[in-house]
């Protein structure tokens, strides 16, 4: 007989039950199955009402993030076998509102992402006739690590400050701000500093470091935030000690 493992899945169906509850499912414990395969098995074979997000199954789209035994993980990149003999607890990402079952509300995160202005900002757009914005491989290497972020939001669920301070802009957004701050083609650093060195910005971070621990793309948001704190401090001292210098 095939070996099985129990998945304790948090359900939330607001129109039927006001509170979330747990439902257990027994699924085959197959080698090479990831948690997402087990959820798909439940959806296809046991209970079609189970709701969750997923898309690429290969750690690129960032939509299948959930808490697996209370730790944020991409369910497509987490092997079921590691949790044998089980049971495994699957809950929605911490610190997010739940829409249904394992689907969380990302509106707040989207707003925070916007605060970080993660796009190329230039003082003046170059006319098309002048050609492309060029960049050397060295210049690209400056920010490449931070550009690997897939917006999976695992770092938000890992960060206790996100849980305690709803205004904290959070790890991924700050790492993405740095992705553009370190881009040789970008001129938006002042704008981002304005937004990120104030209330709920980089200095709310207490360097717990869990964001970098759970990041599936080795972005190291904690490192990005620390570097930003140092930049912000230099800027602050400059504005106090050399006010005539103005903004660079």
């Amino acid at each position: 007989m095939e070996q099985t493992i129990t998945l304790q899945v948090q359900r939330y169906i607001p129109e039927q039950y006001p509170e979330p509850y747990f439902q257990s499912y027994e699924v085959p414990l197959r080698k090479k199955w990831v948690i997402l395969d087990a959820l798909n098995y439940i959806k296809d074979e046991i209970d079609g009402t189970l709701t969750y997000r997923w898309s690429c199954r290969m750690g690129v789209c960032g939509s299948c993030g959930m808490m697996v035994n209370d730790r944020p993980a991409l369910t497509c990149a987490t092997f079921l076998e590691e949790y044998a003999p089980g049971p495994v607890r699957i809950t929605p990402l911490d610190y997010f509102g739940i829409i249904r079952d394992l689907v969380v509300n990302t509106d707040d995160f989207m707003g925070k992402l916007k605060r970080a202005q993660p796009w190329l900002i230039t003082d003046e757009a170059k006319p098309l006739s002048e050609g492309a914005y060029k960049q050397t491989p060295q210049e690209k290497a400056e920010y490449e690590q931070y550009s690997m972020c897939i917006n999976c939001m695992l770092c938000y669920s890992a960060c206790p400050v996100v849980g305690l301070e709803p205004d904290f802009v959070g790890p991924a957004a700050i790492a993405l701000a740095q992705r553009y701050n370190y881009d040789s083609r970008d001129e938006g650093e002042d704008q981002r500093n304005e937004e990120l060195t104030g209330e709920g910005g980089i200095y709310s971070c207490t360097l717990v470091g869990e964001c970098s621990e759970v990041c599936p793309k080795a972005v190291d948001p904690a490192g990005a935030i620390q570097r930003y704190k140092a930049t912000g401090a230099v800027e602050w001292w400059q504005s106090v000690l050399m006010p005539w210098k103005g903004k660079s």
Partner: protein
Amino acid sequence: MAAKKHNDPFWWTLFGAGGTLSAFLLPVHVALIGIAIPLGWLEAPGYESLRSLVEHPITRIYLFVLISLSLFHWAHRFRYTLYDGLMLKHLESYIMVFCYGGALAGTIITAILVITF
């Protein structure tokens, strides 16, 4: 929406400087005065020579910087420990006065001591 000018970078600078200094230097002090000399690995410096070392202006400045920045490192760390650990963010202004005020008081006492010693 322009965020209001914050003093956090200031406190963070003192915190960072204090953390770096104390992490590198305090273990040396502990190793020398707390372990090596009591265990007899190193010969104990006599009272007179230690006193003349501390009286040297550079030692006075060194001690002042080390003690003061370490205190500010504590203040910032403890502020956030109270916020997040004990969930006391609503007492923010009292906590800031207590932590940074404490570090400032310690700094003043240290200044008086290193000047008058």
